[in-house]
């Protein structure tokens, strides 16, 4: 299944928060400059009020407009994007699924923990996906997925993912065959591992 091109840039929520706070602080300064001119009209306060204050309003408007545009793009965008460093756990075995993940860059390892023993199930690369089975089955994740290298993933929320499956039939077929293939490979690996352990 081909991935859509990147349409949004993920911003740290703290950046958005501080941008909004900064815009409001600029507005506070504008009000104070106005009060300064109102109570003490002089060349200086006039300059601050008539030149500096409008410039601050433009800055505040740009900050607010930027956040509004970002929110709009986020709302209308199909995917969210995230970066993970090597070793980061992307999803945890036993947790409920919220997203389907499509690898855009890097590699991840899928591991399953049974009776305190961790088994590597597979390594997934760019173009492959994970996390969707829990969305379809509405069951917890059967395995943990960890970043093997630095990974960038496109994340599709559960509701959007299920909508996509319902309305985009080719996507449904592609995904199901891909899940089948992965399941077959994993089953074969598990069988091989079991045979090896019984021989030992």
């Amino acid at each position, binding site marked *: 299944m081909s991935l859509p091109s990147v349409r949004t840039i993920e911003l740290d929520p703290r950046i958005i*928060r501080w941008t909004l706070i900064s815009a409001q602080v600029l507005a506070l300064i504008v*009000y104070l400059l106005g009060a300064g001119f109102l109570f003490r009209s002089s060349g200086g306060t006039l300059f601050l009020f008539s*030149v500096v204050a409008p410039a601050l309003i433009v800055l*505040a408007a740009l900050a607010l407009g930027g956040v509004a545009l970002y929110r709009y793009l986020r709302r209308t965008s199909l995917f969210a994007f995230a970066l993970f460093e090597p070793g980061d756990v992307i999803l945890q075995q036993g947790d409920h699924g919220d997203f389907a993940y499509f690898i855009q860059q890097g590699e991840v390892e899928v591991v399953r923990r049974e009776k305190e023993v961790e088994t590597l199930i597979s390594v997934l690369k760019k173009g492959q996906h994970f996390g969707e089975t829990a969305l379809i089955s509405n069951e917890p994740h059967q395995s943990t997925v960890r970043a093997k290298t630095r990974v960038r993933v496109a994340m599709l929320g559960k509701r959007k993912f299920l909508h996509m499956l319902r309305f985009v039939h080719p996507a449904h077929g592609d995904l199901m065959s891909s899940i089948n293939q992965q399941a077959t490979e994993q089953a074969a690996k598990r069988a091989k591992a079991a045979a090896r352990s019984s021989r030992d």
Partner: protein
Amino acid sequence: MGAAVLRSLPAEALAQPHVFQQDPVDRLMARFLAVLILVGLAVVLWSLFRYRGRDVGAISWGLLLGGTIVLPVMFTGVGTILALERVRTVPLCGSCHLTMKPYVDDMMNPKSNSLAAIHYTNRYIAENQCYECHTSYGMLGTLESKEQGIVDVYKYYTRTFQLPLQLRHPYRDQDCLKCHAGAKKWIAAHEDSQEKIFAGKVSCMQCHVETNPAHTLIGQESNP
């Protein structure tokens, strides 16, 4: 208390000695501006206190837009009307003490024989005396004075002005004639010379600077 503050605003700002000298536009705009400032401050502070920079839902966005964009734009619009009124006043010109105080002091000095003092102390010009003489006729004159005023304020606060101050260009006859031309007394006094004056062959200052200089300055020789 709030009402008392609002009532006293124009007087506080302009230090006008008599209530009848307060411009009604200034009085109304000052009160309106004060209300806008109070409302704006309340909206922004409440938004900061309540949401702390988070944009969650329509109300938070409403407060953000109202407090950060809508009210400040309204407030600068109203403030511009007020600024255009106040920028003409003598106290505002005199607020640049280092450069303008000697000129304003001379103008207000009843013993001075400068043209500025004669016009001011006799109330030949009723109000905004600096502005009336130093701004050319019409809208373009006002725009020109604003443009030059911004440069002057910048030079003043960056201390890049040079003393003694120099006019950017020779004082224009039209700035005298806009009031005097056609007046009975002026026509009688300039019967022989008015054709030359209108033709630009003789300037007002050529004759008047001898007996009545524009300003008589004391104590402004060089930069402080």
